[in-house]
């Protein structure tokens, strides 16, 4: 959401680059173009001192706007703590063929689950991960380590001083994240139950059985989310 907001706010700036910023535009393009890994903002500022992060952002946005208008097949993205040029997703089918042999296989469900736990709980011990997943994670951790998505960050001050694990920069790159602040939001337990209840199909049938006027909801016949839950719960306890 914040990403979209930023974009919107930046659009007026895009059309209004100062003369100074315009002179830096091709330089920044050259830097991002020649960089083989995400180019950090700090690195750009080292090379061009006196340029504020906000200005760099506007220049990148401007470049992207130029690419879009010129119908280019690539854009600059912010990923793993830096800027890098990437092809547009619509060419995936073709570029995919070029890299066919190099593309790594997708992560399995258990690898994704384990990685999610490391991402939110880091630094975390293997034991803590196993507590949450309820299964042994030796094999999965080995896979994640060999793919450099997870690494050892030290040892915990606990009996046996077990290893602590954290995610790597490669992890950010793998999921297209800017930084760890960019992780998908982890739901709270209460949200989890709400969503779960809405998923359950019996709500619709139950709604029809309840006399809504009894609940004092005459006007609101089509049922807001909240009412729906109340109805569901009541019916459930009636059944029990």
């Amino acid at each position, binding site marked *: 959401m914040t990403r979209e907001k930023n974009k919107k706010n930046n659009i007026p700036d895009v059309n209004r680059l100062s003369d100074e910023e315009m002179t830096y535009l091709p330089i920044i393009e050259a830097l991002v173009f020649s960089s083989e*890994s995400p180019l950090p903002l700090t690195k750009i500022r080292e090379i061009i001192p006196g340029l504020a992060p906000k200005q760099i952002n506007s220049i990148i946005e401007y470049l992207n706007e130029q690419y879009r208008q010129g119908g280019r097949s690539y854009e600059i993205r912010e990923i793993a703590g830096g800027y890098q*040029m990437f092809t547009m997703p619509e060419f*995936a089918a073709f570029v995919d063929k070029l890299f066919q042999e190099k593309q790594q296989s997708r992560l399995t469900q258990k690898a994704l*689950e384990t990685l999610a736990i490391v991402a939110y709980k880091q630094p975390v011990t293997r034991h803590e991960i196993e507590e949450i*997943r309820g*299964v042994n994670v030796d094999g999965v951790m080995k896979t994640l380590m060999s793919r450099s998505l997870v690494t050892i960050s030290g040892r915990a001050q606990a009996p046996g001083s077990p290893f602590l694990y954290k995610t*790597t920069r490669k992890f950010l790159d793998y999921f*297209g994240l800017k930084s760890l602040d960019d992780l998908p939001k982890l739901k709270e337990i209460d949200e989890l139950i709400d969503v779960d209840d809405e998923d359950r199909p019996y709500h619709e049938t139950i709604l029809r059985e309840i006399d809504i006027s009894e609940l004092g909801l005459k006007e609101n016949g089509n049922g807001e989310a909240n009412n729906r839950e109340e109805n569901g719960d009541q019916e459930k306890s009636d059944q029990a």
Partner: protein
Amino acid sequence: MTYKVKLPVFEGPFDLLLFLIKKNEVDVYDIPVAEITHQYLEYLELMKMLDLDVAGEFIEMVATLMLIKVRMLLPRIASGEDEEIEDPRAQLVAQLLEYQRFKEVSGDFEKLENERRRYFSRAVPEEMRNKLNANDDELLDDVSLFDLLTAFKRALDNIPKVTVHQVNVVKVTMEQQVKFVFEKLGRRSYMLFSELTKSVKNKIELIVTFMAILDLIRLQFLSAKQTDNFGEIRMVAIQSPSYEKYLEARDKELVEESEES
């Protein structure tokens, strides 16, 4: 003729339990333990029939469920105090919900993974990566002790196994190996860790060489760097590789230590 049975794959006992709770449309805070345990066991039977590996954790969960049922059936001994009696299911429910949080978010990660696989950066040929200058410090991550130990382990594994045990006098000294490291390095600004260990043929010599490297890092003659995790480790020279200077640094340290005590 063969039949294909489509069965959801359960990542663990929590996953299976959540599935059963959802399937039975029961309240997660009010799990009918006997019924769920019954169905849980049926699934384990089915998994066995289909020759799926039933991991120990699945069976352990049966014991947990039964223990909970027993606790629910046994009358409580009033402790006299009016503290709240905890539902025997509470802990399991908390674990289930915590697991569910991560299971759900793993779906988001899968989406991100799929999106990310649709855009590509310019490829850097493998050969170019290896030719990178050791001075490109920003590309080199600092190596932790764990990385060094991993490299050491790899080197140890490469030594031919000898089954006959013979007690030998250790002839290598750390000083000798420091000299050896310096000779190998020569005038270059860095060398590969593997290059250094390749020419060492026996275990003791390798151990002493490793100790010499650690000592040189400690005394700031060398530093260990790498480009990627698990990548090749480079030993980068910080000072000129002079054996005399090394002895000096060590002696100086000894003097300081004795002064302190």
